[in-house]
């Protein structure tokens, strides 16, 4: 059974600080996704990482994937309040994509305080 573990599960940080969320998974996969969820809302796709060493950046967020270590990171640079949300990583357990469902981590509840 594929396991996806995120840490921390809860993070309170001040604006302007940097921090990293970690996502470890238990099986070989080269397809990893990061989603953002605001309270009561749907899942917004942030990053799709499809190969070892993939790095993607959007604004103050940067995601990377190390398939050998089975680890992805989501780095937040100079956090702002608008980034407060719950962040989920999700793993596609197969290399072919398509029909198989994603396995999600428990999510990191991020609060950024002024």
């Amino acid at each position: 059974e594929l396991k996806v573990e995120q840490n921390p599960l809860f993070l309170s940080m001040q604006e302007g600080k940097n921090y990293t969320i970690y996502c470890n998974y238990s099986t070989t996969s080269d397809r990893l996704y990061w989603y953002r969820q605001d309270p009561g809302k749907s899942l917004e796709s942030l990053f799709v990482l499809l190969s070892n060493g993939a790095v993607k950046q959007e604004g103050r967020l940067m995601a990377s994937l190390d398939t050998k270590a089975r680890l992805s990171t989501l780095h937040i640079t100079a956090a702002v309040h608008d980034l407060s949300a719950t962040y989920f990583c999700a793993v596609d357990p197969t290399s072919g994509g398509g029909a198989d469902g994603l396995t999600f981590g428990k999510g990191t509840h991020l609060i950024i305080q002024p």
Partner: protein
Amino acid sequence: EPEVTQTPSHQVTQMGQEVILRCVPISNHLYFYWYRQILGQKVEFLVSFYNNEISEKSEIFDDQFSVERPDGSNFTLKIRSTKLEDSAMYFCASTAGEGSAEAFFGQGTRLTVV
């Protein structure tokens, strides 16, 4: 921008009743999914659907659940006899198919079983 739409946004039903949750995936997408999220918990895969049949299902997706694509646009999830523990947010998602890995999620249907 194309999006996945779900109806209703909120459904309240009595225990033992049947419910049908509806989804309209993005029009040129080939793979369709249902996920659920119990309040405050992680997102869990239920079922995937491709070429008019179930491709994969999780152990959550028991005989009480069924999916259907009754026409060219709708994708439905039916729960035959709802239980209190079925209360959750149900998300529909779709992907274009292999080679295009990104899953797009609908806004969700909040199901409350009383």
